């Protein structure tokens, strides 16, 4: 796998940047355009939990994305994610009406060809693959 790595601050403002970069990498890897849209949503869903957390500020660890073409398709691994909670009453971010955070997983699973997530220390890593044909 020819891997590209991207580290972004744990800040919602950078989710769009990550989407654009990963989407372009998916296009270069030969992912069809309609599936590139799926990749963008999957990236956004993976990052939404992390950037909606209370770990703001310079001391917060960045989120890392690793992506590239593999034999199975276009693979994206996201590290440094918080575990989604079932608490949708986000009093720290009253600007959002939150659905169940696990809905993000439902979307990623519905849009990609392979999806998995696993603990990574105190955090979580997430992986998904989208076919290139």
């Amino acid at each position, binding site marked *: 796998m020819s891997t590209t790595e991207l580290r972004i601050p744990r800040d919602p403002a950078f989710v769009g940047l990550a989407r654009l970069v990963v989407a372009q990498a998916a296009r270069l890897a030969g992912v069809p355009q309609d599936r590139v849209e799926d990749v963008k949503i999957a990236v*956004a869903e993976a990052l939404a939990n992390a950037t909606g957390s209370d770990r703001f500020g310079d001391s917060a660890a960045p989120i890392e994305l690793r992506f590239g073409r593999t034999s199975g398709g276009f693979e994206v691994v996201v590290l440094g994610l918080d575990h989604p909670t079932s608490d949708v009453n986000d009093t720290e971010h009253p*600007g959002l009406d939150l659905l169940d955070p696990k809905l993000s997983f439902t979307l990623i699973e519905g849009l990609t060809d392979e999806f998995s997530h696993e603990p990574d220390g105190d955090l979580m890593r997430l992986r998904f693959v989208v076919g290139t044909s």
Partner: protein
Amino acid sequence: MELTLEHRTEGDTTVLDVAGEVDVYTAPKLREKLVELVSDGHYDIVVDMTKVEFLDSTGLGVLVGGLKRVRSHNGSLELVCNQERILKIFRITGLTKVFPIHDTLEEALS
């Protein structure tokens, strides 16, 4: 990554035109707009999403929140959306059963 919001009145209905990307960064702006509209007494709202370029679950959450708010005033919130990449998200999450979704604004207003 910009989100623009404009609203206007069509008869008894308020049309909210949404253009751009709705994600974790821009969704609060949409939420504020919906809260403002309901606070100002607009309880029958059509959200025109034909110019939405991106929508994820944070956007869905805002729309659900808006629906709850208007329903608490016996109002309605309906959507206009004809883009398959956006409709797919509603289908996967089952929200096509929650929101009336129309192909055109004319259909939504009729």
